[in-house]
């Protein structure tokens, strides 16, 4: 499969799998930390209001 960050080929046995390098792993972790990974949600319905923030 491909490294989630730089898309280089990685094999299951590689150190740091599924990342190609420690750098890509750190970039990915930072993406989680800074909320870069957002996935589509269902549109908000009026009867199901959720607060915008923590």
């Amino acid at each position, binding site marked *: *499969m491909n490294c*989630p960050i730089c898309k280089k080929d990685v094999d299951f046995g590689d150190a*740091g*799998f*599924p*990342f190609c*390098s*420690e*750098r890509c*792993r*750190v*970039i*990915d*972790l*930072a*993406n*989680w*930390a*800074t*909320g870069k*990974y*957002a*996935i*589509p*949600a*269902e*549109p*908000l319905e009026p009867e199901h209001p*959720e607060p*915008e*923030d*923590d």
Partner: protein
Amino acid sequence: MANDGGVAQSEVYDSSSIKVLEGLEAVRLRPAMYIGSTGEIGLHHLVYEVVDNSVDEALAGYATEVNVTIHDDNSVTVVDNGRGIPVDLHEEEGISAAQVVMTMLHAGGKFDNKSYKVSGGLHGVGVSCVNALSEHLELEIWRDGYTWQQEYACGIPKAPLAKAGKVSRKTGTRVTFKPDSTIMQVLTFNFDTLAQRLRELAFLNKGLKITLADERSDPEKQQEFCYTGGIAEFIKHLNRGKAVLHEKPIHCEADRELPNSAGTLTMEVALQYNDGYSENVFSFANNINTVDGGTHLTGFRTALTRTINKFGQDQGLFKDVKENLTGDDVREGLTAVVSVKVPQPQFEGQTKGKLNSDIAGFMTQFVNEKLEEYFDKNSTVGRKIVGKAIEAARAREAARHARDLTRRKGALESGGMPHKLADCQEKDPDRCELFLVEGESAGGTAKQGRDRRFQAILPLKGKILNVEKARYDKMLGHEEIRAMITALGTGIGKDDFDATRIRYGKIIIMTDADVDGSHIRTLLLTFFFRHMNELILRGHVYIAQPPLYRIKKGKSEKYIKDEKEFTREIMRRATENLRLEIHSTGNGATPKAVLEGAELRAYLLNLDEYEQMFHKVQRRLRDPRVVETLANIELHVDHKAEFQDEANLKPIFETLKKLGLNPEMRRDEEHSAYGVTFHDSTNAERTVGLALAAQPEYRRFRTLARTIGKFNEPPFVVVKNEHRESLPNWEELLNHVKAEGKKDASVQRYKGLGEMNAEQLAETTMNPEKRTLLQVRLEDAVESEEIFSTLMGEDVESRRKFIEDNALDVKNLDV
């Protein structure tokens, strides 16, 4: 001038040598002080000292070649074709100049300031140290038409320097020495170690030819080093096998006159970037590898950072960058060689690994000027280098965020654990379970319903982001991820993650059975896969299976986990006491067929799936009447070949015509096939043809049409407790049976975990005695990763399609 005063000096030799001998005796007493060690490093330094003398001749422009030979007995010969060490009488010492060089410490430097503008010498102690530490040394000089020879033992001359023969025009020096086995702990030379340093010297001294031969091996090992490209070639050598950002190394050199007539400073820099992340910079002062850097390196670094930042600013490349690039940023992937030649260099430290001469300002000015000039002419390379440095700056920023995520304690923690975590009492991880629950309210319910002895609850709230006006995105916030990592106890990252420190044997993801829930699950699984995949491999990660329905009748209640099971259950209830009669014509007294029990259930389940497929095909054709037409099992519209015969499509054409759809029979030239095209209610073109026939839902629809076709002859008569009811078509039949199945029962469909009370949630999803859990295998996580990548990907089309397909499936669930 030629001086044959060797004999004449013999009288003064004894007396004047006392001081000299005292000096060399000091070297023999404390060898490490002079050559670093008596081990491998010191042994090789002996060769470098002798070679450095020859290289000095090359630097002064007299020698072009240096030959080094390791002999069978681990003695070494160094020959150069320089001027030859002066042989005339040294006025101060009263002995031959050559002997002064060979026997007096620091003689090389003192010897003649005008001879060498710059001089190397590894420790500045000169060849006399080598002499002192050699059990035998033989010196031969070719100069002024004669060959001169002298031999030493442990630094003591056996006789004064003497003429040994004549030469025509040959000049140069040969030194053969054998290290003293009573002092040196290592006596065997390493070919590769010597080769590496000699290669380095050849790079640093453009055009100088250095050879190395090893007579100990058979056949004799030999290497030659000569580089006309100098340190630019050195860079290529260092970057061999690496992908470089720009093909040609950047190379610049310049001379500057030092103030106070201190001589000329020669500066040379070569650099090239590769696609790696490490910095590989070598600095040299007078050929000495200054491993601890110094003023020349500082000057270079300052200029590099300044020039790259200036170029990036001028070109407007820093729009997305918050602050200036740092030195570390601009040196990622950098291979560089900085070489200076300074008259009377000042070094720091015992190993002289750091240059102290006050030249940083010259260096900065020189590199600024040359590099700026280079970028002006080669802006493409400049942009690539800036791009790489920006990437490094981002990675640095990323590392800061990542560290932030894993720092030990935070505001939201008490006793090291997140506030939101409702921990369990049990401490043995194998017996503990952690539920990662979607949403605060379901988290609250789970906290009430759990068995607090061994079940812990961590509610995770998906944060809603209004990305665009019409779209909402969901993510796990920083604090959610942080709380999860802390609760799990494994740490995270290359050095910190340790799966054996896990605080719970089972990590159970519990999300709603809707699209948001599946997305949160995808997020969590992707996170585990990427950063904690050992937990998956060790079988720690599970998915809870909350029910989708509750069917309650009287005192009995049943929880159903998915749509398929729900339909089965409804059909089972409906057919308990029901019979279906098929009458081929009207209400004849004798039915054509009677279905009941298992056979009836199978028929109804097929009919239910048929209905689903019917709707799916209808989504493509937008007209139920056309789909109904295609349900005719007499038609030959399944295989590719059947579409190539116009006659097979004729009946469809005719039916659509009767329906007033104004169909057209069209030839699909590309596939030599026919299709029937009509316009739907929005006037969009729709075609019954090969493309439709290739769709899985169409194929399944046709298969099911054949399966149910045998009994698809309305009206249907449903008989229950002698009560008969006639139904005009299969849709009515299906509705009637489903209603029958739900009769007298209360059916609840759970849209989220929050709709269950604590007891229900515990009973159905959390209680180990009653629940089912799905263990996450690596394949499942890989699948999540793929879904996630599609959702995150830049391929807008596949993202759109994925969301659309997913949305369709959810609509089905809601039927």
